[in-house]
């Protein structure tokens, strides 16, 4: 239960690739990475890629709200891409999708990864031999 992050240079800005689970324990690490990026004068655009994020809750959404506030002071454009349908739903329920540009993950990739993470999940939680085919 951890996150790993990587930054890559893109045109006019930086992309932050995040992988893992974003919760109350790991959200401060996300904030520590993201806040300096939106404050960097050279960055006109900061893109957060959540393709490899399997879990995100209000603590992660809170980091994006904080970064959005800062980005509007510096004139940097913050956007989020490759979110799973699950995480997109959270942006929608909370209304955040109306104030931060969010792009869903490409369908085919999402399908494969969801299947893989589903499999992993049931490897962990299903230890009852009765349910094996």
């Amino acid at each position: 239960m951890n996150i790993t992050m990587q930054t890559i240079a893109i045109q006019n800005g930086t992309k932050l690739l995040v992988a893992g689970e974003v919760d109350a324990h790991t959200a401060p690490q996300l904030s520590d990475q993201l806040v300096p990026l939106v404050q960097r004068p050279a960055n006109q655009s900061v893109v957060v890629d959540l393709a490899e994020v399997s879990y995100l809750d209000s603590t992660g959404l809170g980091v994006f709200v904080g970064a959005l506030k800062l980005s509007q002071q510096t004139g940097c454009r913050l956007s989020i891409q490759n979110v799973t349908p699950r995480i997109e739903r959270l942006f929608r329920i909370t209304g955040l999708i109306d104030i931060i540009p969010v792009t869903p993950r490409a369908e085919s990739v999402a399908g494969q990864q969801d299947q893989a993470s589903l499999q992993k999940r049931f490897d962990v939680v299903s230890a009852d031999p009765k349910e094996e085919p």
Partner: protein
Amino acid sequence: MGEKRDGDKIELTFPARTDYIGVARLMVSGVANRLGFSYEDIEDIKLAVAEACTNAVRHAYQEEHIGQVLIQCLVRQDCLEIIVADQGSSFDLEGMKAKLGPIDKHRDIADLTEGGLGLYLIHSLMDKVEISENQGVVVAMTKYVVRDGEAKGVDEITSNRNQ
């Protein structure tokens, strides 16, 4: 030949530190999976419990003393009842309730707060939520087992799967 599960109780107590919230998520997703909840419902339950735990850890124990957070899962015929309780005392429940709600895009972004999003998500994702404050805060939430568009008993679903 579904076993009778109504009334089964599963509990976890953990020190109020953020690194244990992931353990709480694993615990409730394991219980919910056992009861035949759908993948989507399991994710909803996990998130709601994590939000309640985050509140407990963040707001209840701001002093040096690290208290305990209790999660209790109670299996009912047609639903799962989950209680998340802490023994903290500095939680501003009324203040949190006042801030509860989705983000309003017409408001100035500088006025946005992340506070309240967690409780709002709990209310959105669970079927029934009650928050009370006595010796600490207790969040009681319920999710009904739904299959083929209607609520069915937990035992019935288990027996269907094992046929």
